[in-house]
């Protein structure tokens, strides 16, 4: 005989349903945190050239913007595209543009020294 009244405070949503919800909630909170970080980094990017442009040299500004862009791209790739949870080979396939980027930089630098 099935007895559905084992949990005296059971209103139909047993404890077993709370775990998937809390796992989903944790993921949602992480995504919102990443989103807020991305928003803040975008805000920083706008103001690096404008507010501080006069004080920082062109090279510093370029480096700062590049670092900000790479960090933002990395966050999207790792957390929104779930690359941090993927298997090794999937990640190595995803890094292909970076390998090719290095190859292109080497080829360009070589051609400058002809």
């Amino acid at each position, binding site marked *: 005989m099935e007895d559905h009244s084992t949990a005296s405070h059971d209103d139909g949503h047993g404890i077993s349903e709370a775990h*998937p919800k809390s796992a989903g909630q944790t993921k949602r909170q992480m995504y919102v945190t990443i*989103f807020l970080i991305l*928003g803040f980094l975008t805000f920083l990017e706008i103001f690096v050239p404008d507010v501080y442009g006069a004080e920082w040299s062109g090279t510093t500004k370029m480096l700062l913007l590049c670092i*900000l862009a790479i960090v933002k791209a990395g966050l999207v790739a790792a957390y929104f*595209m779930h690359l941090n949870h993927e298997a090794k080979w999937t990640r190595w396939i995803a890094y*292909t*543009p970076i390998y090719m980027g290095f190859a292109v930089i080497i080829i360009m630098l070589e051609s400058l020294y002809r």
Partner: protein
Amino acid sequence: MSTVHAATESHGDHTEHAAEDPHFGKATGGKIAMWMFIAQDGMSFGGLLFAYGVLRAIATDWPVPADVLGIGLTAFATFLLICSSLTMVFAVLAAQEKNQANLVKYLSLTILGGVIFLGIQAYEYTHLVGEGVGFVNSSFQGEQLNSLFGTTFYAVTGFHGLHVLSGVIYLTCILVGAMKGKYTQGGDSGSPVELVGLFWHFVDLVWILVFTFVYLL
């Protein structure tokens, strides 16, 4: 072992589950294919951006982008695309949780973000063309600019805009399926939503780089 578990007990549909081989990875064929496509597409954008970098570096009279382009409006568009990435990842979660209402809601919001982004790009293009920045020749407020400024700007942002448009169309197709309940059946049925999510996040990622190198630098 989780790799064996990943080979789901499919009911005739062999397209979305991983192979039953302990040495095989956990990713479905679709996911690997999408990553390979993203890697290739990333190299296309990389080629365009490197070419832009070289042309700009060797030019002597390149205008300061902030003087010609609308940074404020484009910054809002960037933020909008990041918001749409958030709604996209919520949609993927909703598919995994078999919540059809949320899936439809978040897919719709993602599409809306993409459409507004395209609208902002279209507005910016018409405004720039009106000011004289063309694909072949560039001038701004009567002053002649390095003609490559307009060429590279439209080539890079236009190529990206086409990706946003394709993504919106792709998302709409997935939305139609989502409204029919195809992706909230549990197991690997939510996989197509994850794949469109990967493409959409890639589009956002590329824009983050394009915005930095073309507009801000």
